[in-house]
C-alpha cells in the first residue's frame, strides 16, 4: 500500500499540497514516484512565476520517461526546492519530505476545496493501480 499522509490534500494527477496559512507546499505522491521509477531530473518554475491550477508547473524525468507536474492550486511561486533540483533522487526517497517541489502563495483559497481528501486519493489510486493490472 502506498503511503498517503492524513494531513495533506491531493490532486488526481498525484500531487500533494500541504496548506500552511497563505503559503502551501507542493510535491508529488509516493504512488507517483513509484510509478515513475528512478527520478533523474526535475524542472521547476523560478521564484516569482505564476502557476495555474491543473496546468503544468514543471517536469520530472525518470530514466524511462518525462512526466508533467500539474499545479494543484494557483498562485505565485515563493520558493522552489533547490535541493531536489540538485538531487532528484530525493523525489524517490522522501516524496513528502526533502523531495518537495515548490511553495506557492495561494491566489484563491477556494481552490483547496477542489482537491481530494486522503481517503478520496486512496480510492483514486486504488482504481488506478487496479486498472494498471499490477
Amino acid at each position, binding site marked *: 500500500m502506498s503511503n498517503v499522509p492524513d494531513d495533506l490534500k491531493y490532486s488526481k494527477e498525484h500531487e500533494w499540497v500541504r496548506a500552511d496559512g497563505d503559503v502551501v507546499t507542493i510535491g508529488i505522491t509516493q504512488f507517483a514516484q513509484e510509478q515513475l521509477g528512478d527520478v533523474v531530473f526535475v524542472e521547476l518554475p523560478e521564484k516569482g512565476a505564476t502557476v495555474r491550477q491543473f496546468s503544468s508547473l514543471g517536469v520530472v524525468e525518470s530514466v524511462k520517461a*518525462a512526466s508533467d507536474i500539474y499545479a494543484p492550486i494557483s498562485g505565485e511561486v515563493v520558493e522552489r526546492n533547490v535541493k531536489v533540483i540538485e538531487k532528484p533522487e530525493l523525489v524517490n526517497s522522501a516524496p513528502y519530505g526533502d523531495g518537495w517541489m515548490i511553495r506557492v502563495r495561494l491566489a484563491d483559497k477556494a481552490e483547496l476545496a477542489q482537491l481530494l481528501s486522503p481517503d478520496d486519493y486512496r480510492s483514486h489510486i486504488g482504481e488506478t493501480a487496479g486498472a494498471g493490472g499490477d
Partner: protein
Amino acid sequence: MAAEAPTMRRTPLYEKHAELGAKMVPFAGYEMPIQYEGIVAEHRAVRGQAGLFDLSHMGEFFLKGRGAGATLDRLVSSDIAGLAVGQARYGLLTNERGTIVDDVIVYRISEVEYMVVVNAANIAKDRAHVLARLAEDVAFDDRSYGTALVAIQGPRAVEILASQSDADVQALASFGVTQARVAGARATVARTGYTGEDGFEIFVTSADAAKVWDALLAAGRAAGVKPIGLGARDTLRLEARFSLYGNDIDETIDPIEAGLAWTCKLDKDFTGRDVIAAKKAEGPKRKLAGLVVQGGVARHGHEVTQNGDVVGHVTSGTYGPTVEKNIALAYVPTPLSKLGTVLAVRIRGKDVPATVVKTPFYRRPE
C-alpha cells in the same frame, strides 16, 4: 505461422518475472520485464557484480549445409567466411539500397551449421529477407519460438556461470561459442552481450529455461546477481554505445553514417556492398554523434539545434547511471559531429546545451 498472432507472447520465464515482482510491458509482441527493483539499481548491479536477463524474445535462425557459410557471407556485412568453428561475429543484414535490415550476431556452431541471432521485432522480416536469398544447398530453420535465451553479464558472470557449467567458460574467448551443459541442460554458450561488460549468452530450449534461470540466480546470490529488465538493458547498451535497431539504425540508415563501417568488409561481395562502398568513398552527409546534455534528458525523436535551427535528431537518450550524465546519440551533419562541438537538444520547446563527446560513453576498466 503464429508469428503475427495479435495476442501478446510470453517467454518461458514469464512466471519467474511475476514471482520476482517485475513490471511487465509489451515489447516486440512479447510481455517483457521492464524492471524489477529499479533501473538504476539493476544497471549498477551489472556494472559492479552481475545481472541475469531473459532475452527469449530474440530470434534464432539456424542455417545448415555446405553452402551456409557462403550464403551468410553474402547476406551479412562482416567477415563471416573468416569465422572459425566456435567463433561469433557482429554484423549487419543489409539490402540492395545499402541500408540496414537488422543487426545480428552470427555464431559458427559447427563446420556446416550457423546460428544467427536477430532482433525480436524483426524476426518475420528477417526470415523473409534471408529465405529470398537462400542458396539451394542450405537448410533454414527458424527456431525463435522454441529457443530461450538467458544472458548473464557483469564482472562476476564468469565465476557464476562456471559453477553451473561443465564447460571451461573461463577459457572461452570473447565472441567464442561452445556447446555445454548449464544446470544440467544442453546449451549453446557464447561470450557475447549487449551491456559493455564481460558476460555470456546461454541458448537453451524453452523447456529448460526456468531450470537455467533458477540455477544462475541461486548460484549468483552471494555474488550479488540481480534480475535485470529491459530498462537497464537500454541504459547499459547506450553507455556502451551499442546501436538499438528501430532507434539508432533502420532501413533509412546506412552503416557509414551509423558509425558501423567497421562491420562492413568492403573487399568481399555482400548485399548492398557497392552502394555502401560509394557512400564511404564520398563521406557521409550526417553522422551518429554522442552527446552529453546539460539540463534535461534527451529522448528518441527530440530535435538537435544549432543557433535555433534544427540540424538533426536524437535517436536514443537517457540518464547514464554509471557515467552520471544525460547521454544521447543523434544524427547531425558531419561537420557538426566533431568532438567538442556545442549544439542543443530541444526539450519541451527549450534548447538545452549539448556537447559532442567521444563514444562509447562508458568503457569497462581493463
